[in-house]
């Protein structure tokens, strides 16, 4: 294990280097990982094969035949010393990204049916995932909890698990962040496009499958499109919609709103509403609510 003050570096076999900025999730830790991985990408060092920024860490796949993994760690330490702690303080560090409107139906019938099947794997066999999340996060009512979940935008701080799945961290101060455990034992079933929450992260499941996150709702619009049938996917020639660094506003819809989106999807005419954003971590950390309000205004004006 390479010792270095600050980031912890280690080798994942002969092909991967793992860099842990912090064991706990925080936006400053994420911005540090982001600043380093962006610089690493710009430097295009031969032998650096894949760069995977994640929540409070990042991972690099290295070709050890071209770059010794220990030399890679030295390069990463150099970049850390150059940009590591500037990301959250330096106003000139910004993320050229977009804010995306993502309709969500919370307390929907589809995830409700699935979560009721798996109560024996849940911390609270007698309630629902939403009621449980509300209670352990100190909300008086489930409605107030839902308002908090959908009340402020999220930042996509990691992509993966399966293609296209965004890990979304809510852009609110620490004391307003929701945290829930994962299921005691993972479910064998999760509906496609389920909106889940685990640890401090919201996710949308791109495809159906196993899963351990609390189930809170459903997204009517696809985030994975293998056939690239919807215009957003065809025009970008991509099977996934989200990108690392996207800002997402989960907008609550009722069943009529959900059905409306599904009709557009069926007609292969669904398009996400987006607006460009120049996201500044330092500005955000100084004024979260003001920054969020400005991004939302840009999205919905």
């Amino acid at each position: 294990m390479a010792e270095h003050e600050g980031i912890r570096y280690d080798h994942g076999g002969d092909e991967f280097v793992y860099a842990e900025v912090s064991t706990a999730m925080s936006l400053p830790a994420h911005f540090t990982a982001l600043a380093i991985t962006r610089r690493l990408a710009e430097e295009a060092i031969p032998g650096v094969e894949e760069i995977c920024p994640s929540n409070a860490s990042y991972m690099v796949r290295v070709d050890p035949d071209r770059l010794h993994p220990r030399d890679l760690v030295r390069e990463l330490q150099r970049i850390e010393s150059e940009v590591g702690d500037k990301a959250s303080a330096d106003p000139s560090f910004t993320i050229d990204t977009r804010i995306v409107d993502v309709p969500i139906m919370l307390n929907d019938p589809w995830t409700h049916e699935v979560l009721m099947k798996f109560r024996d794997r849940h911390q609270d066999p007698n309630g629902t995932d939403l009621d449980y999340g509300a209670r352990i996060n100190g909300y008086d009512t489930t409605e107030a909890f839902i308002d908090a979940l959908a009340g402020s935008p999220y930042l996509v701080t990691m992509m993966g698990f399966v293609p296209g799945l965004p890990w979304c961290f809510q852009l609110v101060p620490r004391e307003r962040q929701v945290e829930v455990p994962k299921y005691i034992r993972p479910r064998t079933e999760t509906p496609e496009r389920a909106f889940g929450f685990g640890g401090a992260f919201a996710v949308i499941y791109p495809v159906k499958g196993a899963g351990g996150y609390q189930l809170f709702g459903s997204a009517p619009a696809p985030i994975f499109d293998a056939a690239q049938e919807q215009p957003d996917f065809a025009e970008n020639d991509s099977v996934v919609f989200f990108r690392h660094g996207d800002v997402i506003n989960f907008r609550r819809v009722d069943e009529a709103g959900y059905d409306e989106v599904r009709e557009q999807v069926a007609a292969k005419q669904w398009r996400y509403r987006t607006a460009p954003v120049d996201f500044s971590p330092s500005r955000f950390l100084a004024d979260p609510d003001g920054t969020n309000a400005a991004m939302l205004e840009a999205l919905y004006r």
Partner: protein
Amino acid sequence: MSILVHDPGLETTVQDTGRFGHYAIGFPPSGALDSFAYHVGNALVGNAPGAAALEAVYLGPTLEFTADTVIAVTGADIPATLDGEAVPTWESVAVRAGQTLAFGQLTGGARPYVAVAGGIDVPAVYGSRSTYTLVGMGGFGGRGLAEGDELTLGDDAVSPRAGRRLSDDDVPTYPEIAELRLLVGLHSYRLTPDSLERFTDTAWKVTPDANRVGYRYRGAELEFVPREQPFGAGSDPANVTDCGYPVGSVQVPGGVEPIVLLQDAVTGGGYATLGTVVSVDRDRLAQTKTGDRTRFVAVDLDEALTIRRDRAAQLDRIRTALA
């Protein structure tokens, strides 16, 4: 020129070296699990490295060839026949139009590979012909082969010729207990020192949950060091703040069932990883099956890199000898 699938076996998929460059959005590499058997197969039939081949597991497929060609069966110890006549494995074999390749019962290993002159011609998806069944992409229609499928052959043949044979010294053997070398680390500090020791002391048994996504093992109970969980990780002691998983990494959700993640695995998640199997030994792992026993042997980075260099040199030597 095509191959008609009369019987797909248990699960036979089209695989090549893998799909790289998209790990950060959640695409695992896929590709042949036993990279050695796959590369030797292509070298035997005279294909360019990287031509797509077939990977089977436990039961070989039954395949009819519609034109003369050259094939090689590598990987698991399994008897192969052409129209009922035994043919050697780890050797390129001439096939006449209308002949059918079939397999007997596996006697060692787990995954036979079939390389065909020219390679299997399926569309490359995100830069690879490998099958990734979880989301139904790549390979033949994103799925394992089915009875009645017709595969077309590609133009990756450089010098197809029958009668090339891998030297006996290079043919892998599959002893009863597989030894997989791994680099301990990543979140290994989450396990108690006793448990880490127990991990390398135990002869783990491969459970029925063993496939291209990952292999699960049983054999001992491991304990985590108690701690107040960091924000974002979740409350289970096996949880860490969600991060990337290296291919070959080992996690132990619940402390009782280590999982080695393989080429079709999830690319990240929130379970503590105690180490990573060195890339070369994923080949050996791919030749283990349910009920087999496996030992994990700790190595350091220098040893892991030496193992890698030795394997690359061996493949170079084999390719030169067979060219």
